[in-house]
C-alpha cells in the first residue's frame, strides 16, 4: 500500500512535469502564432516585407515635384524644370543639337554623382580655369548652352543672352532643388565624381569592345542614340553632329569616364570597372563632333594650345589618321529652324 502511494506521488510529479512541458510548448506555439497574426513579430522572422525605408540615402535629398510651391516662384520653378527636362523645345532657339540638360544631369538634376543641381547651386560664383574668371551660375549655364548644347548651330547662333528669362527660370529650379542644402560646402555626390587613373591608361580600341557590350544596346552601335516612333530622342547621341561639341566638359575623357563609371549603364552604376570606364570614355571621345565654339578663326592647333592644353582629350590629335577637332559639318539651316513651307507660301 505504502509503496503504491509512493509510486503514485512519483508518477504524479513526473506526470506534472510532462504536462507542463508539453502544455508550455503548445502554449508558446499558440502565443507565437497569435503574435504573428497581430503583426508583432519582427519582419526578419515573419518574412513580411518591412515598410520600405524612405530616404536612407547618404546624400542630400532634394524636395519632390509635389512640393513645388504655388505662386509666381513655383511657376518659375516649373518653367525651369520644363527647360531642364525638354531643353530643345523650351529653350529651342539656343540648342543646336538633340540633347537636354537632363541627359547628363540625371533624374532632373537630382541624382548624386551626375552633377546634381542641388550640389552645384551653392558653389557659385566660383573661379573656373576654363575661362579664367569668376563665374556666376548664369555664366556657368551659359557655358552649358555654348558647349554641351552646341548653341553655335542653333537658331540664335549662340547661348541665351545675359539676363534672359531662361537663366532666371533655371536658377529658380536649382535654388528650389537646393532647399535646405548647406552653402559654401562641397557636398557629397556633387559633380560626376572621379575615376582613379589605371595602370593600362586608356585605349579607344579596348573601349570599342566595352561600348559594343554595354552601351550599344541603348545608344546604338554607331553611338547615334535611338528615337521612339515619333522621332523623339530617347537615348542621346554620343558623338557626331547632334551631340555635344568639343568644348564641352564631357568631351574630356576623365569627365566622361567619371560620368560613365558612376551612372552608366542606367540603373547599374558602378557596373563597369575603372579600366572599362576609361576605355569606353576614350572610345566615345575619339569620335568627331561639332567644333569647339571658342575656336572662331583659330586653327585647331591654336585652339588646342589655348583651351585644351593638358586636358585628357583627343582634341587636336590624330586618331585613325584623321585630325580630331575639325568639327562635323554645320547644318544647312540652324537646328530647329522652321522648314520651308509646302506649296504656296503663307507668311510664317
Amino acid at each position, binding site marked *: 500500500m505504502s509503496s503504491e502511494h509512493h509510486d503514485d506521488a512519483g508518477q504524479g510529479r513526473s506526470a506534472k512535469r510532462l504536462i507542463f512541458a508539453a502544455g508550455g510548448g503548445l502554449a508558446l506555439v499558440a502565443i507565437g502564432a497569435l503574435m504573428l497574426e497581430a*503583426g508583432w513579430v519582427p519582419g526578419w522572422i515573419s518574412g*513580411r516585407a*518591412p*515598410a520600405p525605408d524612405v530616404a536612407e540615402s547618404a546624400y542630400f535629398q532634394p524636395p519632390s515635384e509635389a512640393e513645388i510651391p504655388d505662386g509666381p516662384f513655383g511657376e518659375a520653378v516649373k518653367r525651369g524644370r520644363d527647360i531642364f527636362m525638354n531643353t530643345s523645345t523650351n529653350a529651342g532657339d539656343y540648342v543646336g543639337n538633340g540633347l537636354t540638360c537632363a541627359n547628363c544631369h540625371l533624374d532632373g538634376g537630382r541624382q548624386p554623382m551626375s552633377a546634381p543641381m542641388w550640389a552645384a547651386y551653392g558653389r557659385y560664383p566660383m573661379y573656373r580655369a576654363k575661362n579664367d574668371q569668376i563665374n556666376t551660375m548664369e555664366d556657368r549655364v551659359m557655358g552649358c548652352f555654348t558647349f554641351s548644347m552646341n548653341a553655335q548651330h542653333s537658331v540664335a547662333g549662340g547661348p541665351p543672352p545675359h539676363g534672359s528669362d531662361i537663366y532666371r527660370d533655371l536658377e529658380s529650379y536649382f535654388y528650389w532643388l537646393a532647399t535646405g542644402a548647406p552653402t559654401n560646402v562641397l557636398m557629397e555626390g556633387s559633380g560626376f565624381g572621379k575615376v582613379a587613373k589605371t595602370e593600362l591608361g586608356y585605349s579607344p580600341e579596348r573601349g570599342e569592345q566595352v561600348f559594343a557590350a554595354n552601351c550599344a544596346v541603348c545608344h546604338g552601335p554607331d553611338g547615334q542614340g535611338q528615337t521612339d516612333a515619333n522621332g523623339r530622342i530617347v537615348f542621346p547621341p554620343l558623338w557626331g553632329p547632334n551631340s555635344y561639341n568639343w568644348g564641352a566638359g564631357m568631351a574630356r575623357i576623365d569627365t566622361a569616364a567619371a560620368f560613365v563609371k558612376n551612372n552608366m549603364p542606367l540603373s547599374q552604376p558602378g557596373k563597369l570597372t575603372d579600366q572599362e570606364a576609361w576605355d569606353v570614355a576614350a572610345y566615345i571621345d575619339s569620335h568627331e563632333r561639332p567644333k569647339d565654339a571658342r575656336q572662331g578663326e583659330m586653327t585647331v592647333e591654336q585652339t588646342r594650345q589655348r583651351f585644351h592644353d593638358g586636358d585628357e582629350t583627343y582634341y587636336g590629335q590624330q586618331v585613325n589618321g584623321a585630325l580630331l577637332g575639325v568639327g562635323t559639318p554645320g547644318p544647312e539651316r540652324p537646328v530647329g529652324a522652321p522648314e520651308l513651307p509646302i506649296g504656296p507660301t503663307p507668311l510664317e
Partner: protein
Amino acid sequence: MNRYLPLVLIALGILAFATLMLVIAPGVQIAQHAVPKGLNPYSEQESRGREQYVSLGCVYCHSQQPRSPDQAPDVERGWGRPSVAGDYVFDQPHQLGTMRTGPDLLNVGVRLPSESWHLTHLYQPRAIFGWSIMPAYPYLFEEKAEAGPEDTVVVLPKGFGPESGVVVARQAALDLTAYLLALDRTYPVPEDALRDDGYADRESGS
C-alpha cells in the same frame, strides 16, 4: 448533467444558432446583391462541360477563387481579380475548391483562351509542361487513322501522339473545353461587392 432532453435541446439550439450565423445570414446577404453585369449563364454546351469538370473531380486540385493582392499575388499570376460572391450565382454545385495543386481556374478562359491548347493539355499535360502532375485524360479523345470533316484534331508535338493517324476530341472533351473557355470573371464589380476583405488593412497599416 443528468437530464437527457435539456442536453439534446441545448445542443440543437447551439447548432441552430450556428446555422443562422454561418448559413442563413450570409445567404440572405448574398441574395440581396444583384447578378453582376457581364456575368452570363452557362450555355448548354458549357453546362455539359461543367458536369464533366465536376464528375472528373477537377475541384480537388483547382480552386476557383482568386485572392486579393493584399493577401497573395494571384492577380500577378494572371488568375484574375479577387472574386466576389456575385461571380458564382450560376454555379451549382459550387467549385470554389480548397487546393491549388494546380493553378486557380476562375479566369482560365481569359488567361488561356485557346481551345486547341486546352485539348492538347487535356490529352497529355506533359506534352506542354514536363513537370506537370495533372492526370492525362486520354478517354476524352479517340485515335483515328484520318480526321473526318467534323473532327477537331489535337495539336501534339512529336512523341506524344500515336505512331500514325491523329487524335481527335470526343464531345466530352469539347464540352469540357467550352466550359473552361467560359470561365471569365474579369468584368468590373461594384465596390460594395461581397468578399473577405480581412486582409485589406494589413498593407495600409504597415
